[in-house]
């Protein structure tokens, strides 16, 4: 699913301070591609992802997903939009501690009208043999796999990942990246990955660089590096 953003502006007001989190950010994400958004902390990466994902609103500009604008959507309509199209993956995994692996994935499955098969999904993320475990019994990497499975099983058109490897070591992180690439290839899911890990850009079709709320650079990679081979920093 293609995403277009045009001159998107977002301002936060907290007390006396006004922060321009996004300044006329424009981008085009082609369908079925992996895009990484790079940039230092506070540069507006998360804000961009959140407005695309419909959990935050922008003040000005325009975002069009799959030919439909997010402009002026009501709360309910935004929820339906997320429900149908978006899979979120967070840095902190955000699993439900009182549910098992399988049940956590089920939480995602219930939202979809055409979910992927459960066993299959668990197998894809390599968590089938641990499906009865609770989150506190899992390592960080394993928890992130479950979070991916939860997003994946909905069979969403877009997967939005906010620093998915931020809390993981190199090996585990690369495994997660492999998984994301696999998802993109197998299901044709558009994948947006936020990271401040420069190397991850090497595996994406397109790289967007942000600074102080502006998109300062956009480029396409001629050749894609295998996730296993990216430079980890």
């Amino acid at each position: 699913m293609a995403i277009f953003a045009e001159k998107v502006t977002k301002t936060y007001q907290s007390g006396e301070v006004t922060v321009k989190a996004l300044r006329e950010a424009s981008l085009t994400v082609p369908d079925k591609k992996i895009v990484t958004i790079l940039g230092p902390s506070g540069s507006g990466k998360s804000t961009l992802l959140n407005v695309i994902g419909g959990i935050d609103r922008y003040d000005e500009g325009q975002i069009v997903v799959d030919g439909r604008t997010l402009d002026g959507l009501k709360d309910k309509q935004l929820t339906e939009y997320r429900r149908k199209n978006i899979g979120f993956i967070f840095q902190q995994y955000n699993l439900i501690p009182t549910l098992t692996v399988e049940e956590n994935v089920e939480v995602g499955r219930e939202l979809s009208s055409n979910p992927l098969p459960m066993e299959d999904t668990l197998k894809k993320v390599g968590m089938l043999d641990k499906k009865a475990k609770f989150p506190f019994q899992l390592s960080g990497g394993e928890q992130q796999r479950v979070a991916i499975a939860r997003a994946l099983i909905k069979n969403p058109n877009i997967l939005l990942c906010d620093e998915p490897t931020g809390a993981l070591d190199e090996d585990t992180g690369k495994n997660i990246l492999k998984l994301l690439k696999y998802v993109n290839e197998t299901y044709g899911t558009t994948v947006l990955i936020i990271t401040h890990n420069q190397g991850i850009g090497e595996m994406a079709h397109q790289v967007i660089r942000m600074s102080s709320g502006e998109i300062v650079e956009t480029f396409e990679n001629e050749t894609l590096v295998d996730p296993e081979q990216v430079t980890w920093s």
Partner: protein
Amino acid sequence: MILKKSMIRTLKEKKFQYAGVSLLLLLAVTLYVSLSMAVTTLEERNARFTEDYKQETFHFVPSEPVDSSKLQEWEEEFDVTLEARSYYDADVDDSVLRVFSQTEEINLPYLSEGSNPTDGSEIAVSSVFAEKNDLHIGDEVEISGERMEVTGFVYLPDYIYMIEQLTDLISDAEKFGIAIASESVMDQWSSRSQTEITGWTSDGEVPDGFMEAVRAETTILQFVEAGDNPRIQFVDTEIEGAKSMNNTLPLFILALAAAMVLLLMRRRIEMQRKEIGTLLALGYRRNELLRHYLGYAWVIGLSGTVLGLAAGAGLSVPLSNLYANYFNLPALSMFDFNPMVLVIGLIIPLVLMLSLTAWGIHRALKVEPLTLLRPKEVTVGRKSWLERLPLLNKGSFIQRFRLRLLVRNKARSLYIFLGVMFSTVLLLFGFITFNSMDQLVETTYEDIMTYDYAVYYQSLQTEEPADGSDPFTVGEVNVKGQDAKLTGYGIETGTPYIHLLSDEEKLNSELKEGAVLSTPAAAVLGVGAGEDITLTNSLNDEEMTVQVAGVADVYIGSQIYLPREVFNEFLGYPGDAYSAVWQAEKPERGADVYQIEDKQKVIDSFEATSGATRSSVIGMAVFAVVISVIVLTLLTNLIVEENSPSISLFKVMGYHNSEVSKLVLSVYTPVVMLSYLISIPLAGLTLGQLMNSLVEQTGFILPTDVSLWMAATGFVVIMLTYALSIALSKRKLKQVSLQEALKKQQD
């Protein structure tokens, strides 16, 4: 929804908290349903007995027999049913058995077992009397020297509350019972029996002019309308009182339960902010989440109410039986329930739980998912104005920590405060009632009424009374502009038998200045010393305005005391007339004696029922303790949960469990103590108000002073309760893991 599983696991994990609230709800519903159902049964039985067995509208005692042709004449003139009924007070062992002639039109006996007595040696007795004296059908019993066979067990509709004299307060089945016998038996006793005329009208009112017509024929010694007859009226009073009480206590508990649910749900939402945010981001709809969280309310609400309904229905049966011991109502119906009771007992608590929860969650769900996903530190970090006080920034770290805890959780402190207050008031209600019974007897019957017997005559006496007996005049008086009826006593101011005490001070000499009222009379009229009241009476058109000279510590009955000459003049009696005497010696039952009141019997019946009072007081105290343990444990548990990061940190630093518990939990000790201290006068005050508002129905007022021993005992009980709830929460504190602190910092 798969989230249901999450709810079930949370409920299991925090079963202590949720079960606690559910238990509170259960208590409220059980109490409400059982009491309401028991009262409904009582009401139904009373209504059917009154109607179907033609309970009298009034009865009167003429000084001379009235012949039946005269009765017939009145019946036609006033459209009233009249029937003469004779009775004889027989001595059976230590007790009095009042044997009535069988009636056919009014006050029809209900035979619960056996058959009606037919010949001269048969009798049917009241079932309570039979039970107390271990009598069975076919047994022989000696009555006034004659052996008679018990043929059956009866109930009379004008002896529902079975007291020997209308002035008696407490019914004692050991000392007094009723029976019916055939005409031939009554004929044998005719020389010693009394006759009263009972009357019945379809509208339940005494016909206009009827009393005057009777008075033209004969002197009326006593005229009692059903509404003024405690044997009939008391059950109505009890029903009314119980109805209002039934709602109050359960409502309070329900309110507590509701507050707790709100507390728990808000806590749950706080804990699951991030979870809610995640679910919203994933695309869950707000009303789906609302439904999910309402599940908690459904579980708590349904388990509490359904179990409460079942327990309440079950408990209503023994409660009905308990009522049956007090009131002699035949079991004309069983297990009556007003469907409204079930509906109210189920619907109100459930709706309350659901709507409160919905309200609590709604606020959290309105928040943007992004805000929910962000750590809450931003909002928690805000200092309250209290914390900025310089006082709170002094002292050691520990002291500051404890003070912060108190100040930050103002809501917790408030809940603890209210919980303790509720329990204290309930506990002290119990203590006061317990104590008052003794005080009531002591003050009224020992310090104030120093006579042993009162002898009431059939007609006015004028000759000098015998040595050792002191004359007085009794009569009913009305107060102008008020609905109340008082019993007037014209007494010798120097009488040795009545010491009108008010706080140890004797008011007898004040009678020269005006009238002295009993405490209930003053409460009913709403007057105090120094105010004027205008009296009227039903014998003549006299009006008399007197000043209230004082209110005596007579806690039972609505009496007004006046000097005898004054009272006689008001009633139109000769100055030296009297209608009764007090004396210390046991009187003979002379021909002109209408009634003898034995003070010891009245006291005995108080003592006899003190067992029942005692158990109800114990029940109340247990109730208070159970509720406060639940509430306090719930709260301390929550406090531990909320502070688990700090607790964990303390543990990491090397504090022992007991030290940590002291640090965190005992912070609330001053709150508990403060609440207790404030509750003591509050309990006295509210009970006093309650007594005053009920005095018109009950006719007595219990002294409501909180004495030192009550305050001390209550303090010990409340502190023990608090200690228990802390001990229960210590387990929880031990479970807080050391990693908790580190985990929280990661988020």
